[in-house]
């Protein structure tokens, strides 16, 4: 689904990502760990095509197509969607309009979708205006649920979300990924899921979201370099026990 090779990215002449390799096969959910400022958000915005992030080496392919220099909206239309960490407010544009924009020409029942993430009363307000941290996460998910991307990029979907809403959020994410309820299904079931479920890259610091979604793999980004790739829970355990310092010395 997504393949990143030897990627180097600069912001204003300063390298934020160097030599990043990443492969997310169709239907897999990968977790991205890494200390503050290590370049996680930068990686997501580079995948999405944000103009601040200049690719100076390497390439990004999505569904077999080289998208390294494609404009943002074409990537969106190809099926990439991001839940942003700090989305801007757009004055005079209601959340309802925004969700309609996301759904493009797909049928979307905005009221129903909003109800599912507890945002019904926010639909007529300007998108992101004066939202709390947790409300922003839900608003972003609401937009994605209308956008229906094949590759979902979630930037810290659970940070700032209270315990009650985190379960709701987990459910929405699973719905978004076509993962249904979280359980290890039979082989037949698995086969079906493989065909139908979406791919995802999820940034998390706490790992709380792992209680709700199934992660196929974890990666650690450190100072712009992809450090390791293995089972997400293993990584989380390491980070919890030894911190990123130890993680860095690991050469897996």
């Amino acid at each position, binding site marked *: 689904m997504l393949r990143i090779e030897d990627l180097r990215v600069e912001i204003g002449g300063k390298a934020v990502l160097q030599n990043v390799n990443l492969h997310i096969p169709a239907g897999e959910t990968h977790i991205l760990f890494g200390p503050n400022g290590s370049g996680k958000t930068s990686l997501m915005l580079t995948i999405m095509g944000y103009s601040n992030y200049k690719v100076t080496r390497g390439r990004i392919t999505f569904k077999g197509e080289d998208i390294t220099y494609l*404009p*943002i*909206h074409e990537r*969106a239309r190809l099926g990439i*969607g991001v839940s942003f960490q700090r*989305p801007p407010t757009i*004055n*005079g544009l209601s959340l309802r*309009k925004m969700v309609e*924009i996301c759904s493009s020409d797909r049928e979307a029942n905005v009221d129903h979708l909003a109800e599912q993430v507890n945002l019904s009363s926010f639909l007529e307000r300007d998108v992101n205006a004066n939202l709390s941290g947790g409300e922003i996460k839900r608003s972003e998910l609401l937009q994605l649920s209308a956008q229906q991307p094949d590759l979902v990029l979630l930037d810290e979907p659970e940070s700032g979300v209270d315990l009650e809403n985190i379960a709701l959020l987990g459910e929405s994410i699973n719905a978004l990924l076509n993962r249904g309820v979280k359980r290890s299904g039979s082989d037949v079931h698995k086969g079906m899921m493989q065909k139908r479920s979406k791919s995802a890259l999820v940034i998390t610091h706490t790992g709380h979201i792992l209680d709700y979604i199934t992660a196929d793999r974890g990666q650690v980004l450190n100072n712009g370099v992809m450090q390791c790739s293995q089972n997400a829970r293993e990584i989380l355990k390491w980070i919890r026990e030894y911190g990123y310092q130890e993680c860095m010395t690991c050469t897996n």
Partner: protein
Amino acid sequence: MYKLDSNGEVNPKDFSTEAESHDYIEDLAQIDGSDTAEFENVGVETDDSNRSATFILKDLSVVHCKSKQEGIEVLKITEAMDKYDWLKDYMWKDISPEKDIYTQQASESPGEGFFIRAEKGVVSKRPVQTCLHISKEGFAQNVHNIVIVEEGAELHVIAGCSTARHAERGLHIGVSEFYVKKGATLKYTMVHDWGEKIFVRPRTVTHVDEGGVYISNYISMKPVGSLQMNPITYLDGKDSIARFNSVLVAAGGTDMDTGSVVVLGAENARAEIISRAITTGGNIIARGSIIGNVPGVRGHLECKGLILNDGLLHAIPELEAHAPNVEMSHEAAVGKIDQREIEYLMARGLDEDEAISTIVRGFLNVDIEGLPPSLVRKLDRVIADTQDDMM
């Protein structure tokens, strides 16, 4: 000829105050096709089923003047002056003919204008529409309007001003005096659609009595050679309210100097002045002034501007307090569209042009109460045009 002098003034004497007369049209549907289109551009509907009354002035001639609702009176101003002796007390009450060269011209060679009065307690079921139209090349249209909303009445006026496509140069001088009596409401939606060589000088004063509400919406999105106006509203009565919403779009060749002055002169008077200005090459001076003369009044000014490619935007918000315990504030911001907003929308699937027009539409989306659907559609069209200007 027809040039602004160094003070930004144009000489009214350079224009003709004479024009051939146009026939009265009994049935709005009979109006000439090209006129119809121009009237509709400024909110006038020739199917008047959604209007309580209609007044149309073409050059010097009133071509239509009719009210369909009892208690809502619409007359030519000359006729009203003959009919009501008391009306002279409302004429030139707080605008002196000596104010400037334009008021001088308006008093020396008075033209027509409208008189609209909502009788005590009468609520206009539908808006009253007026249109002041210039069709003669080089014509100076002098207009005097009076609107009186009597005690407890409610009136919505959609006031359009336009120029025929074939008339390049012209001058419009409009002296308007509005009176909102005790507990009355006047909503006045003004739509201007002039031309690149039209000079426009409205001079307006409004008085609002106790508990009265005056809502003024102003929309000017088409090029205008030179527009200069700064209407004054006096909130004379306790608990009176004034709200102003302006949407200004200035393409190249446009020169606008517009604003609103509100004088808070009674206990608990409140005012809000909101403007949104976009330039794609023209000049906009957006003024706003709130003057607090007694304790316990409140006012807020909000002036936001976008420069989309070129042009001048000069926001001049002013607050003046002459008494203790007033609450007055202002907010002004001038800038360009935030790249992060564009990219956010692109990440949701819009291309760059669509993203920009979505942001522009949102920017102009001040809550203009009761804007008729035809005007909402026009707003959308202009936003699309504005974008073409930018590219």
